[in-house]
């Protein structure tokens, strides 16, 4: 949504990925968000993850709802189709698009208002369908475009810029997603690209619904003393439980990791995520353990981060539906038309 065209400057020595593309080729238009906005750092992480996986730029589809976060798909992957939908309605657009063409990488970008208030129903049901997409919540606890109202993700007791205290409990997208049946749940911090990029790589390659909640401070309306979504608060309470590394299919894991704390999980395309436990009590493959740990840490005021839950065994929407492997948009009409003979046969039941 930029008014200024981004100059296409390329450093001659920028590294190339397997497709011979530089990271610049995965960028989009100029951001119009506030200087220092956490969302721009997430945009950067998406660009880096997509470049790093060497996925052709036009094989992504970028979808969003309404809000500051939902503007960001214009700022990455300029060679991908994007759709900025209605407030809270991105999951249904993603469901439809994925129904029609199951072969694309779907990236949905949403905010805490977009997902946890107006779009809570669609968010929940996209999870329930295990829709094959990466769903990023750029979580700042506040409505930015309308200037600073609390969102449903704001913590109880957190203070607004003008001093009002939030009295309602927060909805935690991570524990909510796990209880709804999400098969990949992660949380990170926009200020920690080293953690976020491998999480996004893993999320893009996860078969099913990958929810990535990214704490992303709002520098204009929610970065003050008393806020629990400020840069300072987030840094102070940042508690990585599981660190993740993404390993492409060709690489050997054993060469790089010691046995023990490292737990490789194979993704459907043969790539792997290596989960490294930092919190020894945390088991990201156990739903009950994950939720109880999250709740306990949450009550203690800790922001638990990392890949918090992972289950590669669940079928995604098309597998449940038994949809043909060919994307529906590529099936020629001649194959879809049952023909006049069949119509005659069908009508014999209506005589």
């Amino acid at each position, binding site marked *: *949504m*930029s*008014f200024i065209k981004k100059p296409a400057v390329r450093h001659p020595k920028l590294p190339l990925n397997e497709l011979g593309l530089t990271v610049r080729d995965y960028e989009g238009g100029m951001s119009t968000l506030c200087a220092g906005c956490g969302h721009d750092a997430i945009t950067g992480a998406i660009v880096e993850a997509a470049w790093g996986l060497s996925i*052709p*730029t*036009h*094989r992504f*589809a970028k*979808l969003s709802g309404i809000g500051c976060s939902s503007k960001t798909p*214009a700022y990455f992957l*300029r*060679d*991908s*189709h*994007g*759709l*900025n*939908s*209605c407030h809270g*309605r991105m*999951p*249904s*657009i*993603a*469901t*439809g*698009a*994925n*129904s*029609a*063409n199951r*072969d*694309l990488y779907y990236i949905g970008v949403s905010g805490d208002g977009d997902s946890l208030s107006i779009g809570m*129903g*669609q968010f929940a*049901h996209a999870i329930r*369908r295990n829709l094959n997409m990466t769903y990023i919540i750029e979580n700042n606890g506040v409505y930015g475009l309308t200037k600073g109202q609390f969102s449903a993700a704001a913590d109880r007791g957190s203070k607004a810029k003008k001093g009002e205290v939030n009295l309602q409990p927060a909805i935690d997208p991570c524990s909510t997603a796990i209880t709804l049946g999400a098969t990949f749940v992660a949380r990170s911090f926009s200020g920690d690209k080293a953690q976020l990029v491998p999480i996004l790589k893993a999320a893009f390659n996860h078969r099913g619904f990958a929810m990535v909640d990214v704490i992303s401070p709002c520098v204009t309306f929610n970065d003050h003393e008393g806020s629990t979504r400020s840069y300072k608060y987030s840094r102070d309470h940042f508690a990585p439980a599981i660190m993740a590394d993404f390993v492409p299919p060709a690489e050997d894991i054993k060469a790089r990791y010691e046995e023990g704390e490292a737990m490789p999980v194979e993704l459907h395309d043969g790539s792997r995520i290596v989960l490294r436990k930092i919190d020894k009590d945390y088991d990201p493959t156990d739903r009950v353990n994950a939720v109880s740990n999250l709740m306990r840490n949450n009550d203690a005021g800790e922001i638990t981060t990392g890949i918090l839950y992972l289950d590669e065994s669940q079928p995604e*929407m*098309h597998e449940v*539906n*038994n*949809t*043909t*492997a060919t994307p*529906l*948009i590529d*099936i020629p*009409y001649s*194959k*879809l*038309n*049952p*023909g*006049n003979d*069949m*119509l005659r046969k*069908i*009508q014999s039941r*209506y*005589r």
Partner: protein
Amino acid sequence: MNKPSVNEFTIKIANVNGTGSASANGLIMKTLFRMGIPVVGKNYFPSNIQGLPTWYEIRASEKGHLARSGRVDLMVAMNAETYKQDLAEVASGGYLVYDSTWPRHNLLQRDDITIIGVPLSKMCNENFPNARARILMKNVVYAGVLAALLDFDLDVITTLLNETFAKKAHLLDANQLAIRMGYEWAQANLETPLPFTARTSDKSNGHIIIDGNTAAGLGAVYAGATVGAWYPITPSTSLMDAFKRFCEMTRKDPETGESNYCIVQAEDELAAMGMVLGASWAGARAFTPTSGPGVSLMSEFLGYGYFAEIPAVLFNVQRCGPSTGMPTRTQQSDIVASAFASHGDTRHVLLFPANPEECFYTASTAFDLAERLQTPVIVLSDLDIGMNDWMTKELQWSDTYQPDRGKVLRADEVAKLDKFHRYLDADQDAIAARTLPGDHPKGAYFTRGSGHNMYGAYTENADEYKEVVDRLRAKWETAKKYVPAPEVVYSAKNSIGVISIGSCDEACKEALDALREQGIGINYLRIKSFPFNGEVQKFIDDHEKLYVVEQNRDAQLKCLLCIECDVADEKLNEILHYNGLPLTANFVVDAIHADLAKGEAA
């Protein structure tokens, strides 16, 4: 009905819902149909599962008049709760059949009709051991009684039962026994047949009996729809049921068993519409069936589809509003709401099928228009068309049909372009080319419901914004060239015309036939689409007096005619039927008589 007549009568069966009367009623109707007699079945049912009153009305008409007749020649009164009203509804000279196992109320009597008591429960109790069978078979016994009273061809009934219960031998025996019991009892105890009877004819040859939702679902399969998203709502639910059934029959890969379609039951209508837009944006033919309350919820996305120019097909099977209204009663009261669904300057292309046959063909028209015009197209059916059993011409599919996908540039075409701009009106027909996600990096664009310019970029610039919305208005003019023309029955002699729409068609035609017999010649135009095309204006100009017949309180079709056409308000006379029952010819005839008499008095 005192004069003996053949193949012109209406039977109404009053029952309690949940007692299994549907199959017996269907059997009676199908028997008439198979005897070659034009027939229509209308179901007046409650929004309820079990225990409330329900009626099924069968009209046989050799002349082919298949609107609701508005009179009852033979009532089968099976529901004590509604007995009084059912008795009152029988036309003078008509008949009423009731279950004489229990005594009737003495005070309920009519001298101008014949009341026939049949010990239905008693016969069933004596012949069927099981309680549920006793309830169900009572319905089949009255079918047997009617077969004797109306002189049905018993072989036809036997064949129908054999087909229906081919795989359920025990049910077949019970049904055959019940029919025979009713038939034989009537022959032994009653004067049969009645003065009005059924006689074998050939008028139903080349026809089928089908409801509009089934036909529309089938039409969506033939149109090449691959994605269906929906949220259950009466009276549209059976449309997606049909689509699913026909997809399972015809769209499974014979080798892998995989589905060449994807049906998603959405969490609500908002999501259903979002899924349709998402799928259409990605390049599939996608649709959703719904009814009034669903359209209200879908309005936000309908406006999005209009502004972002995404094809979509919505079947609105209308029911009685406002609000929840009467979910199981019919109306045409979403015309205005559909035409302008959503905020801002939004307008939608509407199509108006009049019967199941048109529902089938309108499906592919709707997809072709939606993709050609890159906009949501709403098909306005209604409960009467969608859920009732109509006799309709056999459906044909031209295997040379190719879907009109509109201006879609696929990878090879995009590759040849210097640069792609999504909303550039290159052909000067107000329709820009679109591309599909995943095809080619050069085709990428950003779709948004916010202000955008002709290049597809975000804008808040006054001129750039205006350019886009003005082009959308110009596209409305383009649409007029593509939408189906109205049906016109015209004679230069007549200075009066009737304009009508959708399911009013049968009643209007029957009414005009009746008026013609009385020496009143009236021309007829049936709207099939919005925007209207030039023929509508011409018809208005050609007549001194026009009646607009429609099924809503607020004259919504007339309202659109006044907005879109050059016509003085007083030239359009309203004939409005909106009590939830289908329109009858008599209603139209009476309204026209009353109006003409008014003119003579003045």
